[in-house]
């Protein structure tokens, strides 16, 4: 902050403006009818956190059941509902909206120097759709939930179970629209709303990865929407597109489902990669090694991600030759991911590395994502997948990607931008400790599951042979540590909102337009239109310009 001897009109003594987006208006209505992307991001933050907590609670119950081999805590039906709802809530209501709708929503206009997203009302609509979809799902949960597995495989989901499949299907369908609208808003915004001078290759990598994510949201979601619609039609209308008894093919459902749901994995991980790119550059204080490679790797992952869905169906009765094609294409997806990991590592070389909390999360991400990605390569190998398909190996693999990858990135991002979002700082010691506890807890929980999987323990088993107990107990113990780790940020973030020290505009010394404005930003983000003249991550970072931040 430029030190002003006497505070300018409308500013606090420390130079920050008195009115920002958080205190510009008060009351429930000012939040529920807001069109400010920053407030909508906070609405999303609250709602995805609720779903994360619910999904996490179910995870705890699942791990409790699996402490003993006998399946003695819950009835099998209850257990089946628990893991189904855990998957549905975590995937459709936490991981997919998570980073894009919270951090992306908040940051993309700030990062590209725009006043808002292109369609603010649609942005609000997408939050309402998300909430309505969530309400349907919670309503179904209160009425017993669903026991089909989050994958809704036919004909189990269409003709055999009696639970609220349609209600949850409608919930996911509506939440899917919300996801589409978010992606649409991002694409248009990034194309049309960039600040003067902000060329494509001056965009932060966070924006690149959100662009890639948005492509998947737009192109993939409609196909799963129609697949869910067909499941609902089969349950109500005597339509048999997937029903072998009526001449249909149940494997077709799997094709339509995974056409979206495999790329959906990249909806979860790509934004997280974007966050990590920002964190590594900021805390090593140097440009990302091979910026263009990393940027194009995001697009490459998004596009290739659409060509590999059949690797979920190697043993599902798919043609062996189609399996071969899907296998080799899946190998290709690993290349852009490897490029990213190597480039992040190389960025650290000759950096000026600080050990702040967000950086610890980012490094945790790199380690866990590497293991998750490399085990993914094993699963893309036909001969190995034939054995570990639908075992705990795959559970471990995708939790390394989604929890070790996506959630580590999400938390890293939250810690990084929290001062910008709330204008407050959080305690450094506790936050570093939380990163460490989560990293340890995560590995203790999920590493044993790789071994369990290779030993042959199938997923979605309520009871299991006794020789698997040792590793299961280990995993459940780790889950306790992990749960504790997740509670810590919840506590100190809430604490910081009231008691945390005030954050300066640029606490980390980062580049990027979002750090040029005040913390928290004013309603229209910048007082004057920022102009970009340099590539991203040009250090040392410019001091926040009073012209942009304060308009004087």
């Amino acid at each position, binding site marked *: 902050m430029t030190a002003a001897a006497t505070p300018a009109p409308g500013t606090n003594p420390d130079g920050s403006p008195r009115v920002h987006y958080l205190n510009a208006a008060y009351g429930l209505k000012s939040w529920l009818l807001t069109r400010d992307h920053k407030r909508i991001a906070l609405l999303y933050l609250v709602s995805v956190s609720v779903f994360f907590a619910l999904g996490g609670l179910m995870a705890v119950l699942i791990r409790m059941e699996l402490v003993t081999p006998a399946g003695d805590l819950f009835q099998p039906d209850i257990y*089946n509902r628990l893991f189904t709802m855990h998957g549905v809530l975590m995937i459709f209501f936490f991981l997919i909206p998570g980073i894009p709708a919270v951090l992306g929503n908040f940051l993309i206009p700030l990062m590209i120097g725009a006043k808002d997203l292109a369609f603010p009302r649609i942005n609000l609509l997408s939050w309402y759709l998300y909430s309505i979809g969530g309400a349907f799902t919670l309503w179904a949960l209160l009425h017993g939930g669903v*026991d089909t*597995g989050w994958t809704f*495989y036919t*004909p*189990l989901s269409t*003709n*055999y*179970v009696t639970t609220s499949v349609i209600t949850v299907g409608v919930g996911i369908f509506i939440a899917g629209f919300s996801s589409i609208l978010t992606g649409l808003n991002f694409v248009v915004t990034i194309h049309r709303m960039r600040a003067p001078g902000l060329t494509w290759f001056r965009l932060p990598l966070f924006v690149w990865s959100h662009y890639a994510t948005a492509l998947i949201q737009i192109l993939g979601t409609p196909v799963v929407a129609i697949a869910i619609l067909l499941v609902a039609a089969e349950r109500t209308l005597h339509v048999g597109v997937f029903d*072998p008894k009526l001449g249909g*093919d*149940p*494997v077709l459902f799997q094709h339509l489902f995974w056409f979206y749901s495999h790329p959906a994995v990249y909806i979860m991980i790509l934004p997280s990669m974007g966050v990590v790119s920002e964190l590594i550059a900021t805390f090593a*204080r*140097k440009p990302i*090694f*091979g*910026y263009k490679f990393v940027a194009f790797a995001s697009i490459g992952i998004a596009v290739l991600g659409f060509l590999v869905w059949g690797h979920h169906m190697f*043993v599902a*009765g798919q043609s062996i030759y189609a*399996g071969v094609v899907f*296998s080799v294409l899946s*190998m290709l997806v*690993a*290349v852009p991911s*490897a*490029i990213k990991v190597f480039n992040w*590592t190389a960025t*650290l*070389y*000759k*950096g*000026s*590395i*600080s050990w702040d909390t967000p950086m610890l999360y980012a490094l945790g991400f790199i*380690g866990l994502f*590497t293991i998750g990605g*490399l085990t993914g*390569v*094993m699963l*893309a*190998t*036909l*001969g*190995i*997948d*034939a*054995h570990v*398909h*639908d075992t705990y190996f795959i559970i471990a693999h995708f939790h390394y990607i989604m929890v070790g990858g996506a959630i580590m990135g999400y938390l890293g991002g939250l810690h990084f931008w929290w001062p910008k979002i709330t204008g407050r700082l959080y305690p450094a010691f506790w936050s570093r400790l939380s990163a460490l506890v989560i990293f340890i807890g995560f590995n203790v929980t999920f590493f044993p599951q790789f071994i369990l999987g*290779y030993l*042959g323990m*199938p*997923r979605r*088993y309520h*009871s299991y*042979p006794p*020789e698997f107990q040792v590793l299961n107990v280990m995993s459940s113990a780790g889950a306790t540590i992990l749960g504790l780790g997740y509670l810590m940020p919840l506590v100190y973030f809430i604490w910081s909102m009231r008691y945390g020290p005030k954050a300066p505009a640029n606490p980390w010394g980062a580049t990027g337009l979002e750090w040029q404005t005040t913390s928290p930003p004013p309603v229209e983000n910048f007082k004057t239109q920022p102009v970009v003249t340099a590539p991203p991550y040009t*250090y*040392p970072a410019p001091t926040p310009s009073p012209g942009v931040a304060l308009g004087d």
Partner: protein
Amino acid sequence: MIPSSPLLPDQASDVARSVDHLMIYALSGLVFFSALIAILVLVFMVKYRRRSADQVGIDVYETNPKSHVLEIVWSVIPLTLLLILFGWGTKVFFDQNRPPADAMQYWVTGRQWMWKIQHPDGHREINELHVPVGRAVRLRMISEDVIHDFFVPAFRIHVDVLPSRYTTYWFKANRTGTFHLFCGQYCGTEHSRMVGHVVVMEPRAYEAWLAGEKTGPSAVASGEELFVAKSCNTCHRPDSSARAPILNGVFGTQASLNDGTKVLVNEDYIRESILNPAAKVVFGYQPIMPTFKGQVSEEELIQLVDYVKSLKAAPTTTAEAPQ
């Protein structure tokens, strides 16, 4: 009863051994690369830690002309290793899925929540599969309701059991023992209880076991009985006045259809022709056969299919047999 080692599952077939070898290759790649990344990250973290508040990093990318080479190197090396993994994995997968011609034929019917198994000689068992060691065993599998999955970790292969068509599982056990059989595809409430054992026995012990059990008629014999009981033989008879195609020797041939296309006469086609006779009518015949959907169970279908499969071409009727 079930031997177990702490970190590796039982290995009870040659294919299982080749899967393990493949896994060791993949695993060494994993260990190498994750160790490499972890060590580099930790070393850089310490070596290049920030020493003063305003210190900035040194951009080595733009200044070093070899940066692009580096990018290409760390794209091409992983790609090469991945393609090796792909090729090897594909070879193993074909081994896992292509049964030898001399395999013994068993039948598996999955239903919520049990495995029904029939031996070549007609003996049946539930959730248990007894096989002789050293013989290739082929399972022809179908589900009566939802999708199940036949999974024996000791043989390192899953195969889904579909309600719409037959799938094939094969193994050649190379040691005796009792191994887990799991349902590997979530199939509803009691999914985790849809488990059983594969018991691999010495051939002589297997013979003795079979002899000690009550044996029913073989699948072919049951199929023949059904063929008469369901009056299939009134139309499908080996004489010139038949209103339906002669079935002797058709299995494995290409049948011409009324719409001009051809279809391979295999298990799926015979099953479909019983359930939905009008879907693919052989050239020159009318779609007059009634459907048997709901009148024969999947197990009876298996017996009928096997009976038709067993009918060898009779030398006197070659002129009438559809090609």
